[in-house]
Each structure stands twice: as structure tokens, then as C-alpha cells.
């Protein structure tokens, strides 16, 4: 019976093979060629439609050759029918990821181009504002309208600088710190590409320009304490960001043999901006004394500030000792009550301490000097009191003497 079945199978096999005889080798080669074709096509896929079409073709290939799975399992060694399609699906997924990334990059490039245009427009508008500011300074005679125009321009310029800073931040994020770039494992080609982007979008020159404008702005305008606080915060924030970014950019751009002059210039400008903001802060504080007729020496640092104030108080104390001046309660009160406590301690001190422009010890040194000054005032007041009591006693004795003499 078994023999009969075997014979039957062989007969059917022979009959069918005669009709459809085809080389297995050819079949396998066709399959391999198609797989290779789709693998290569997936490496260079350009659109979602193309990807979808390849996906359909792979599904069709799988169906078409499913009847030859056994043949392919043997012939594709060390791969087999299933692992070949697993590899194709993995390639398909990679291609899809690449395509998504490509789309993201195109979107990013569009965004970056827009950011660059916005940046150029803002730079233009900043210089127009600066010109207007100079005009206002020279032309408007009416103080009130001058102030209004001035304030409006300053506010507009600050907003302009902030917007540009924001755009530069976004440009840096887009061009240098893209999420898919792991800086530590960046290849040479990736570094070259980022370097090219930095140059193409003139990023370093834009950072330089922004810093120069910030310096120009801080030197050109007058600010309220709260404005200076904000500007100082922005400056510190930028300096911190630049510390990280500068190192990163230097690392990325190290692929170039030419020295990074722009980076050194930016470092200098960052320090110059910091010094300019500090100078402006100290100048604003000095103006508090000057506005009340107190002429203290100019100071640009915390140490100079302490020396200037203690020097001023010392000169006052010494002048009382040496004459001809005497302790003036008004002078003391203006310096201590109106300026030191009402303005500096209230509006500036927390900020100066927080930003480390002044130390707690330096503050105490000034306050000790103020105490010393007040003691001189008190000792002068005591002397006056004793003299007055003495005069009163003498007057009383004279009156009593006159009274006794009259009675007798």
C-alpha cells in the first residue's frame, strides 16, 4: 500500500514537473535579487509614497514565495525565509525613521531660515531705534515729551534685544544642540555638517553682534533699578549658557584647522558686557549720592564702593576733629537715612549681595563706618548738652544771686 502511495506521489511529481519544470536555483536567484533590490531601494528611499510602495512589494514578495519557503530555508543558509523578511522589515523601519528625520530636518531648515530672516529684521529695527534715541537726546527740548519718547524707545530696544537673544537661542538649539546629535559620539562628518550650519547661518557673528548691541545699549541708556536687575540676570544667564555652548562649539568646530578667532572675540565680548552692566549698576548707585549733593569717589567694584563710602565718612569725621566744620545732623541724615537705608539697602542691597557684586562683609564695613559716624554725632550732641546745662546752671545761679541781692 505504502509503495503504491509513493509511486502515485512520484508519478504526480513527474507529471507536474514536466509541465512546470523550473530551476530552483533560478527561483532562489530571483528571490535573492528582489530582496537585494528592495534592500538597496530602502537605503535611498525619498518619500513616504515610495516607502509605502516598497512595503507593498515586500508583502507581495512574501506571499509569492511562501510556497517555496522550504526551498528558501535551505538555499538561503545561514539566513532563511523568515529571517530574510525580518531583515527587510528592519530595513523598512530604519528607512521610515530616516525619512521622518529627513522631514524633521527640512522643517527645521525652514524654521531656521525664518529665524534668520527675523533676526536680520530685528537687527535693522534695533539700529533704527538707536538712531531715534540719539535724535531724541539732541532734538527734543521739552523734558516731559523727551522722557516719554526716551522710555518708549528704550523699552522697544530692550524688547528687540530680548527677541534676538531668543532667536539666537533657538538657532543654537536647531543648529548645534539638535536632539539627535549626541555631541560626545558625533562623527567627523556630523561635526563638519554642524560647522557648515554655524557658518551658513552666520551664528557666531550674530552672537557677536548681539553682544556688541547689548554693550552699546547699556552704555547709551539710563535705567531704573528693576531694569538693571533684569539686564544683570540676562547677562549672567547668557554668560552661563556661553560657558557650555562655547566649549561645545569649539569642540565641534575643532574639525577646522583655522583658529576660532570668533570664539575668542565672543569670550571677550561676554566679559566686556558683564563689566559694562556692573559699571552701569555702580554708576546708578553713585548717582543716588550725587543727586542729593553727596560727592563720593567713583566706584566700579564692590571694593571701590566700600572704599569710596568709608573714605567719605572718614573725611567727614576727620573734618569735625580738625575744625572748622562741625557735625551736621542733616548731612548725616541725608547720607544714612535717605540714601543708605531708603535707597541702597532697600532697592539695591539684596540684588548686590545675590549677584555677588558686594559681600556681606563689605556691607558690614560700611555700616560699621556709619555707626562710627553716628557716635561722633552723639558725642558732639553730648558736649552741647553739657554746655547748655552748664550755661543753664550759671544762669540760674545769676538769677538767684540777683534775686537774693534785690531782697537784701
Amino acid at each position: 500500500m505504502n509503495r503504491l502511495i509513493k509511486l502515485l506521489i512520484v508519478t504526480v511529481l513527474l507529471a507536474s514537473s514536466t509541465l512546470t519544470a523550473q530551476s530552483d536555483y533560478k527561483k532562489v536567484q530571483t528571490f535573492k535579487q528582489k530582496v537585494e533590490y528592495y534592500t538597496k531601494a530602502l537605503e535611498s528611499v525619498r518619500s513616504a509614497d515610495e516607502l509605502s510602495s516598497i512595503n507593498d512589494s515586500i508583502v507581495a514578495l512574501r506571499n509569492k514565495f511562501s510556497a517555496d519557503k522550504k526551498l528558501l530555508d535551505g538555499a538561503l543558509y545561514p539566513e532563511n525565509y523568515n529571517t530574510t523578511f525580518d531583515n527587510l522589515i528592519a530595513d523598512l523601519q530604519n528607512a521610515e525613521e530616516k525619512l521622518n528625520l529627513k522631514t524633521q530636518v527640512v522643517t527645521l531648515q525652514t524654521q531656521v531660515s525664518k529665524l534668520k530672516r527675523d533676526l536680520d529684521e530685528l537687527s535693522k529695527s534695533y539700529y533704527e531705534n538707536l538712531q531715534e534715541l540719539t535724535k531724541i537726546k539732541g532734538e527734543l527740548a521739552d523734558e516731559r515729551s523727551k522722557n516719554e519718547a526716551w522710555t518708549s524707545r528704550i523699552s522697544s530696544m530692550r524688547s528687540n534685544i530680548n527677541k534676538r537673544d531668543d532667536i539666537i537661542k533657538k538657532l543654537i538649539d536647531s543648529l548645534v544642540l539638535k536632539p539627535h546629535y549626541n555631541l560626545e559620539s558625533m562623527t567627523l562628518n556630523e561635526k563638519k555638517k554642524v560647522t557648515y550650519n554655524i557658518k551658513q547661518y552666520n551664528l557666531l557673528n550674530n552672537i557677536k553682534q548681539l553682544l556688541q548691541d547689548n554693550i552699546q545699549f547699556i552704555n547709551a541708556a539710563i535705567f531704573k533699578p528693576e531694569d538693571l536687575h533684569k539686564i544683570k540676570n540676562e547677562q549672567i544667564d547668557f554668560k552661563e549658557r556661553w560657558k557650555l555652548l562655547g566649549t561645545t562649539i569649539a569642540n565641534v568646530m575643532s574639525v577646522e584647522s583655522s583658529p576660532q578667532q570668533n570664539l575668542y572675540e565672543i569670550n571677550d565680548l561676554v566679559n566686556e558686557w558683564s563689566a559694562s552692566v556692573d559699571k552701569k549698576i555702580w554708576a546708578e548707585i553713585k548717582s543716588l549720592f550725587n543727586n542729593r549733593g553727596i560727592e563720593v569717589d567713583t566706584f566700579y567694584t564692590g571694593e571701590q564702593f566700600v572704599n569710596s563710602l568709608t573714605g567719605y565718612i572718614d573725611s567727614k569725621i576727620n573734618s569735625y576733629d580738625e575744625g572748622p566744620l562741625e557735625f551736621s545732623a542733616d548731612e548725616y541724615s541725608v547720607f544714612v537715612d535717605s540714601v543708605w537705608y531708603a535707597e541702597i539697602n532697600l532697592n539695591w542691597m539684596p540684588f548686590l549681595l545675590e549677584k555677588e557684586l558686594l559681600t556681606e562683609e563689605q556691607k558690614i564695613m560700611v555700616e560699621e563706618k556709619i555707626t562710627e559716624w553716628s557716635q561722633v554725632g552723639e558725642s558732639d550732641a553730648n558736649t552741647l548738652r553739657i554746655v547748655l546745662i552748664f550755661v543753664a546752671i550759671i544762669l540760674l545761679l545769676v538769677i538767684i544771686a540777683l534775686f537774693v541781692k534785690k531782697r537784701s
Partner: protein
Amino acid sequence: MRYISNALAALLLGIIAAACSTFRMEPADYSWPVESVLIVDEEGVITDTRYSFDVNVSAMFQQEEIPLPEISGREVRVIRDQKGYYFMTSQGLRNVYVFLAEEGGMNLVSKILVNSEGVNGPAFNQRSPYIEFIQGDNQSTFLTKDGIRQ
């Protein structure tokens, strides 16, 4: 008497040792799933990287009166059947040659005439227990080591 018993014991041990060294493992299936198509090099050698063997096939071509300089670059189609016989032929040969691997070479087992004018577009398929041979316009015959299966 003692010598005789020692000699018998030695004989018995010898028989056991001999029996152990000549055993057979079966069944075995040597069939390749698909034929190999191998190119003859300038020295007449074909190399199969998948099955890790190489063999000089110039003697097979000499059988068909094709000299060595003319065989370089030709395709040789090889397949191995279930029992381990190698079937070989090439475009233009009249026969399919059946070999069995031996120490250091392949011995001809049989020569099967498949086309007296030389085969055109030959190919082998594994159809255990047979080897399918295709030539021309998908003309198919089934082979064993002994010849064409009628």
C-alpha cells in the same frame, strides 16, 4: 592449556576492538536543497564556499573533448542527492556525470547521456529521492546515480 586460554582472551578483545572501529551511522541525508552554480577557474578548479569543497573538473571536460584553456570561466552545475552522489554538468556537455567523494578526489560512478548534441540551459533540482534535470525549454527528466528514471 594456560597459553590457549590467554590466546583466546586476546582474540576476543581483538574482535571487540575491531567491531567498535567499523560501525555505521544511518540513515544519512546528503541532499542539497538547491544546486550550486560554480565558475571554473584558470586551473580547472571549482570552489563551493557554502559546502566547503573544491575540485578540479578538467577531467570531466576532457571526457567531452574540451581542452583546459576552453573551460576557464564556464559554469558547472552541481547538486548532491540524498545518498551523497554528486551530479555535475555544464552548458554544451552531452552527459550528466555522477561522482562519489573519496579520499582526495571524486570517483566517477556513472555518465548519463542527456543530450547527444550538448545540453542547453541545464539545471538541477532536488526532488528526493531523485534529481530533476532540466534543459532547453523546461524539458525535465529525473535522474538517479544509475541513469534516467523511466
